[in-house]
């Protein structure tokens, strides 16, 4: 009988038992490109995906498989594929499901690269996307057309922090027989598991909280195994004949794991966005403390929210756990442990004050990442979006006074002291302006 282990236990053990030959307690790093076949029979079986096993690290690797199995168990999915980045995971999903002439419905409040991929790159390949308000259920339903093959959104949008009503969107998708893929980077399976709310595919940037230490880029897609791909007209490359399986159907042969079987045979094989075994190891180390870190991230976030709310230099503050956040009710329901550790706020004095703040903090790092153990900040107005006018920024849901804060695990008092320094500098700019 197998035990049903709980989250913390799974984060330490899933996908690995001590190595039989060496007794290695830690997950070994299989730093190899390829694997000696026992005989020609085994080689053929692996090439044809008749049985499981490893053939070539672009397609699978034992260290990476441990990471995949750990993520699948944490998210409650049937199977998982880890890959070189969150964006690679997103591309693998889109390219596995959609072909030229197909249509996607996606949230308009997503991470910029997710939007760019759909809005600019995929359109070159004949895949069109309609962007919708992630919480306008009517708009989502209306936007689904006969050729819609995917609905996509983020649980907590980056950087606007809109929370998608995943259970309700999932109901619409089920009714329309369209798979729902959810980017769960900002919540991680510790805060919320989209599959248990009816989503069909989960996408993670492992680079962020899951890896948790800002040392490795990685991504993963987890397959819920809860979508019926059997409609051959609608999903011909999953349920119809496919070249990668010598003309047979992934759906008929692999059922609940058809999607990942296809992605391994086609996406990993032909595009090759493989993770390195070393990075898989680093990310596994991160997962071992995921729940401990997330608890502290949330605890520090709560205290930072209080601190920022009371601070005179802060003109506005946004986080789904605040009662005035438009999605607060949804967040309370689907993210009961907390809505992540990103806070966005405005700084009095606009773009220049924001710049001054960023330049005068010392402990908090100014960089283009989130979800590190260390506190991170970015001021889109002077970095990623510096080429845009205030009006143009507003159009993309941003303001030039906005700071994005990824709350780290430092002692909260030290973060506050650091912020005071930044605020002081910003206030000077602000008062000069007046």
């Amino acid at each position, binding site marked *: 009988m*197998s035990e049903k282990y709980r989250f913390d236990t799974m984060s330490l053990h899933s996908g690995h038992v001590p190595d039989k030959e060496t007794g290695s307690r830690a997950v070994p790093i299989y730093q190899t490109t390829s694997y000696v076949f026992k005989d020609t029979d085994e080689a053929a079986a692996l090439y044809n995906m008749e049985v499981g096993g490893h053939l070539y690290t672009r397609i699978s690797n034992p260290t990476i498989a441990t990471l995949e199995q750990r993520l699948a168990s944490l998210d409650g999915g049937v199977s998982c594929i880890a890959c070189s980045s969150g964006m690679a995971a997103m591309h693998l999903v889109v390219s596995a499901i959609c072909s030229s002439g197909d249509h996607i419905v996606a949230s308009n409040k997503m991470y910029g690269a997710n939007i760019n991929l759909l809005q600019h790159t995929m359109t070159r390949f004949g895949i069109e996307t309609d962007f919708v308000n992630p919480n306008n259920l009517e708009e989502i339903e209306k936007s689904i057309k006969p050729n819609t093959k995917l609905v996509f959104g983020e649980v907590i949008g980056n950087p606007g922090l809109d929370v998608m009503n995943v259970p309700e969107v999932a109901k619409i998708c089920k009714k329309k027989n369209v798979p729902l893929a959810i980017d769960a980077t900002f919540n991680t399976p510790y805060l919320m598991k989209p599959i248990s709310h009816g989503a069909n595919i989960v996408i993670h940037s492992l680079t962020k909280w899951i890896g948790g230490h800002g040392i490795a880029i990685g991504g993963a897609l987890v397959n819920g195994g809860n979508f019926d791909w059997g409609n051959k007209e609608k999903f011909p490359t999953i349920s119809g004949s496919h070249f990668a399986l010598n003309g047979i159907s992934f759906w008929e042969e692999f059922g609940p794991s058809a999607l990942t079987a296809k992605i391994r045979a086609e996406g990993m094989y032909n595009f090759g966005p493989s993770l390195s075994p070393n990075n898989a190891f680093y990310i596994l180390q991160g997962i071992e403390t995921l729940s401990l870190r997330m608890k502290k991230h949330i605890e520090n976030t709560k205290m930072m929210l209080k601190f920022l709310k009371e601070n005179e230099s802060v003109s506005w503050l946004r986080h789904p756990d605040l009662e005035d956040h438009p999605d607060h009710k949804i967040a309370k329901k689907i993210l009961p442990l907390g809505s992540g550790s990103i806070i966005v706020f405005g700084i009095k004095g606009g773009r220049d004050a924001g710049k001054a703040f960023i330049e005068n903090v010392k402990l908090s790092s100014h960089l283009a990442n989130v979800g590190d153990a260390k506190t991170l900040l970015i001021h889109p107005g002077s970095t990623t979006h510096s080429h845009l006018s205030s009006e143009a920024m507003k159009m993309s849901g941003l303001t030039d006074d906005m700071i994005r804060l990824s709350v780290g695990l430092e002692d909260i008092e030290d973060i506050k002291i650091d912020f005071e320094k930044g605020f002081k500098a910003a206030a000077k700019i602000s008062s000069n302006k007046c």
Partner: protein
Amino acid sequence: MYTNFKGNKVYFSTGGLNLVKDNETLCFVHGAGQNHYSFTQQIRYFVSQGYNVIAPDFPGHGFSEGNQTISIEEDMLWLVELLAFLKIEKATFIGHSQGCLTILELAEKKPEFVRGLVFVAGAMSIPVNDFLIDTSIDNPEKAYDLMVTWGQDNYGSFSISDWPGHNHLAEGNAVMKMNDSSVLSKDLKSCNSYNNGKQAASTININCLAVLAKFDMMTPLKKGLQMVEIIKQCDYKILECGHFLPIEKPKELNALIKKYLNTLK
């Protein structure tokens, strides 16, 4: 592959290929609440080894429609009628769990169809406790979960798999959810009420193979070994895993079946 059989859409997996006239046939018979996906890592492997494989979804299971058969005797009759319909005169039958009862019954009542028999995690009888039967009626999804958890050893607990990226506990649940929700309780009742296994086993006159699981909680090893005792010539192997042996130890099972098939040549 789909066919219209007895007025219903019926699915049997052939590994995606057409049956080849002169190839020997292997027929995989799934267990309670399962379907052809129990044998994902066997079907295409044996097709590549040059066999015709058929792994039918019994009515109401997987992709097959129609009224569910409600006893082992009915399962067996449905199966032989399907074989006749597909013009398969003889096959080696590989049963898993409830599928072992079906092929025991077949061996006694329709021996002319049988070239060989492989019992995987099987026994001559499979009594099912009332709690599981009741749960399968009141809350089928809970019963799936119980079966999948009881049915796998450590491999399940730790999501250990030779198949990269797979989490068998969740996958086992997903496979069972593909069936009609009334299917499992009927299957469990079929298992529970079948009592001809010992008699059927005693009539078998061919060389058989039993592949049993050391940590089997659904059909305990002890009961599997009793079956081996009764069958006149039954080779057996015990693998260190749970009841869902074809998923937990696919390579070992395939190698044993392959060796056994060679003895039939």
